[in-house]
């Protein structure tokens, strides 16, 4: 129960998606230009 609410709080946190998007962007850049 507690575990579920922690995960839900992380996903509901708008700040969480900033590094996630940056990481995806970086991996795409690497895949194209490495």
């Amino acid at each position, binding site marked *: 129960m507690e575990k579920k609410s*922690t995960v839900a*709080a*992380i996903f509901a*946190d708008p*700040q*969480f998606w*900033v*590094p*996630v998007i*940056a*990481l995806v*962007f*970086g*991996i795409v*850049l*690497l895949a194209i*230009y*490495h």
Partner: protein
Amino acid sequence: MAEQTIDMATPVSASRSLHMLGVLTGFAAGVWMGAAEAPTKFVAAGFSPVLLSLAMVTGVFTGRWTIPTLLKGTGYVFHDLREKKHLIIWALLGGALWAVANTLGTVAVRDVGLSIAFPLWNTDSLVGLLWGWLFFHELRGAGSSVLTKVLGGTTAILIGAVILGYASSLRGATGPRHSGAGILVAIGAAVLWGTMFLPYRKAYISGMNPLSFVTVFTIGELVTMTVLALAFEGGPRELGHKIALARPALFWMFLGGFCWVVGDLFAQYAAKYIGIGRAAPLMNTNQLWGLAWGALVFGEFAGQSLLIRILVSGASLIMIAGALAISFAAAPHEEHLSRSVASKRECERYGMDHTQVEASLAGEDPLAGTPLSRRWWDFIIVILAVGVFVVLAKDSSRVPFPMDSRWVAVMVLAMMGSLAGCGYLLWKRTRFS
């Protein structure tokens, strides 16, 4: 609610001493991160950027289990992580961002050369400053004088980086191969490194101990770098073969990793006590120390023109002036209140005790009353980690070109001085909290 926040914000006198502590650890981070470049400098040739990065990150991971384990044992770290388990994913993300950014950085160096890549990715401090302002209320209520010092100092460090890069290019660096793509990749590295400061600040505005954060951060780095190396180096068998070939040079790459993890720990304390807006540009003075190793120890600028010497000296002075400006920009009470609002929001979102978090941000150790003494296995871990370095040193190759031993002594003295000085201050003021 406003009154509660005001009561909990750090008192002015305490915040000034924490500001100085944060500034000094920021400078120490620059010293150690700059030194991290030195051991890898003379083994870099002949190895792919991804392999070099993987070896260094493995050294970072191993290094984390040496001195840092003696500061706080595994019991303390795991207790802290259990209390703030929502931050584990943030630390993993931070490590993954570092690994991808570092690999992008090496690609950028390949494509446009260090002289263009380095100043471009140094703009990460601006990205960090943006996230600090936007998400953690840094510099809000700071007043024009403090704002001028921080923004002016950051700009000066950036200008210094551009001039140093230009001076390096005059030494006859190889010409650009894919300039458009290389610039894009370098900017990408800056975005990732700058965004990496977001997990840093997220952890510390929640009162996490830097040693706990670094533990998970290094795992994130190692896992990401291993995946990248397997993807880009031709699979497990090919990667294993390349690592075996690199064996004589591994010690130096690991040593670079060790220096980096010490520098990163200081950077984490700086981020905790002065925020990412101020800590990021101070960390970026590592370029100055990297250059000092090259110029003074390895004699890279021997026989260079007067113009290059003037450019390097001028850029160094500009960077130092910028760093000094930031060091005098202590956050006023209003900025602390603003930061406290951001901290309270985190506590409400993740169910943490705001009083305990504020105590941690004021340099107190919230776990001080908990019996978390070091256990016997902590010492086994330290012995094993040090053993890895000893085994690698036994089979390591010798330094392939001359070094100025007097300057090596001076640089090592600066490193040890910053380690002992900042280590003592951190222990005295925060007990490594």
